[in-house]
């Protein structure tokens, strides 16, 4: 069986050929250090500037508001710690949510040890943060509100403009981890009053190991990587030139083709959700039915455990995930699934299939053919299922 169906685009995507081609010259010919005075350096600098413009344009930002990082996690760490330390004279309280990515949550936990206070907001059963809850959590000493744009596990898209508006009224900085949203849905940082935004290239067909933090002009933030004058003195380290070029190209392509891609992928997604819900009993769809990323599907299959489901799908060539790929090292069920109110038992049985550019109608058909019998077989093996059948 050679069929391979990749449905883990939320974990990472391949790099598009067009993107890779723009990167290639920067390894061998245009290899100068952009900080150098000579021609080898200057010619590279120009292209870095172009990439910065491409990103700015995609977000409705100014080029000088874009700072390159090694990815989404660094951007999240920088936003949270950089704002916290720069503004601690003003206050030490941060508001975020229970469903953030580990890059953000662990930065907050670190800050708690360092004397900051963090409020982790609840979400509703669909994973939505209630703007009223944000409002209620704001205190005199609140310096930052950080709410992710769209969740990586269940795909729920938050009311970012509304929450950011609340922050703005009170002169509190607003950050959003938009790693899953950028390239998939339309974002405008100015219209939406976003002060800081994290993104990562490998989620939208760019290379791994490169991302960016948008920092609105005038925002008070310190650096977390100290050293040379790169990124206008705010982020040290010789630039990942090919990565940055690839990021610029990838975001340009993603934004230019967003409408048609989103429509196509959404149609596949809805077909997949409908098929799974029809064919597999005792199943729930996680996340919001409408406010969800075009490519995200997330299910919980009762009575079975996610990893054994993943492995069985993998044997059939289907690549999915059970919770965030990053948290797969942990034995606890996903913090996101617990936050939307699922029991541990149910949360253990989660499956995320995230669709992308390469998925086709046949892929969906194949999954709908292969998945139900696997779930059934695992249920037949499960002592939990036995009880249910007994009770019926």
């Amino acid at each position, binding site marked *: 069986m050679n069929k391979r169906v990749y449905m883990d685009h939320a974990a990472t995507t391949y790099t598009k050929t067009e993107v890779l081609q723009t990167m290639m010259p920067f390894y061998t010919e245009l290899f100068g250090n952009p900080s150098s005075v000579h021609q080898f350096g200057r010619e590279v600098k120009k292209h870095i500037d172009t990439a910065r413009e491409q990103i700015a344009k995609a977000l409705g930002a100014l080029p000088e508001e874009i700072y390159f990082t090694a990815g989404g996690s660094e951007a999240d760490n920088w936003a949270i710690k950089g704002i916290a330390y720069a503004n601690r004279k003003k206050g030490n309280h941060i508001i975020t949510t229970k469903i953030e990515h580990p890059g953000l949550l662990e930065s907050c936990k670190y800050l708690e040890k360092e004397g900051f206070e963090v409020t982790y907001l609840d979400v509703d059963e669909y994973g939505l943060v209630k703007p009223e809850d944000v409002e209620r959590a704001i205190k005199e000493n609140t310096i930052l509100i950080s709410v992710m744009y769209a969740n990586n596990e269940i795909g729920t898209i938050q009311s970012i403009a509304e929450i950011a508006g609340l922050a703005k009224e009170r002169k509190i900085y607003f950050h959003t981890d938009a790693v899953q949203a950028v390239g998939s849905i339309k974002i405008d940082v100015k219209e939406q009053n976003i002060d800081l935004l994290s993104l990562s290239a490998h989620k939208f067909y760019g290379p791994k190991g490169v991302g960016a933090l948008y920092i609105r002009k005038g925002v008070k933030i310190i650096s977390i990587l100290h050293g040379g004058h790169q990124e206008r003195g705010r982020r040290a380290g010789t630039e990942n030139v090919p990565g940055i070029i690839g990021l610029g190209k990838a975001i340009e392509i993603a934004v230019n083709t967003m409408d048609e891609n989103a429509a196509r992928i959404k149609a596949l997604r809805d077909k997949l959700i409908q098929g799974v819900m029809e064919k597999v009993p005792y199943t729930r769809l996680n996340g919001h039915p409408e406010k969800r990323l075009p490519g995200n599907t997330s299910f919980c299959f009762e009575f079975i455990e996610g990893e*054994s489901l993943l*492995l069985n799908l993998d*044997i059939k060539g289907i690549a999915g995930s059970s919770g965030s790929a990053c948290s797969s*090292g942990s034995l606890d069920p996903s913090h996101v699934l617990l936050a939307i109110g699922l*029991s541990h*038992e149910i949360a253990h049985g989660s499956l995320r299939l995230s669709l992308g550019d390469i998925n086709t109608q046949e892929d969906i058909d194949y999954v709908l053919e292969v998945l139900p019998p696997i779930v059934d077989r695992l249920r*037949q*093996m*499960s002592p939990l299922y036995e009880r249910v059948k007994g009770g019926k």
Partner: protein
Amino acid sequence: MYSDKVMDHFSNPRNVGEIENADGVGEVGNAHCGDIMKVYLKVENDIITDVRFKTFGCGAAIATSSVATEMIKGKTIDEALKLTNKEVVESLEGLPPAKLHCSVLAEEAVKAAIEDYKKKLGA
């Protein structure tokens, strides 16, 4: 991640199922932690003539259940009681460190079933 042996037992688990009117039944683990193993025994003249299991859990949980039941089938009760999680791991050609607790669970499930058998016998 998993050895070929684990994947073999995971994909084709031996002794899956229940035994009606089993002589001993043991269940360990809980759904909260994501692993439950239930072992059923048929014992004749102190020998385990049949053994079945049901498992809710990860790949390693299923594979350790499968190999553990295979290892005690045909053994005497005393021999079966000597089964250690280490032997389970060895016969699977290793487990990732994060999954070693599954082998412990398998050992415990076998012991729980034997205890149940002994209790019934004594009763």
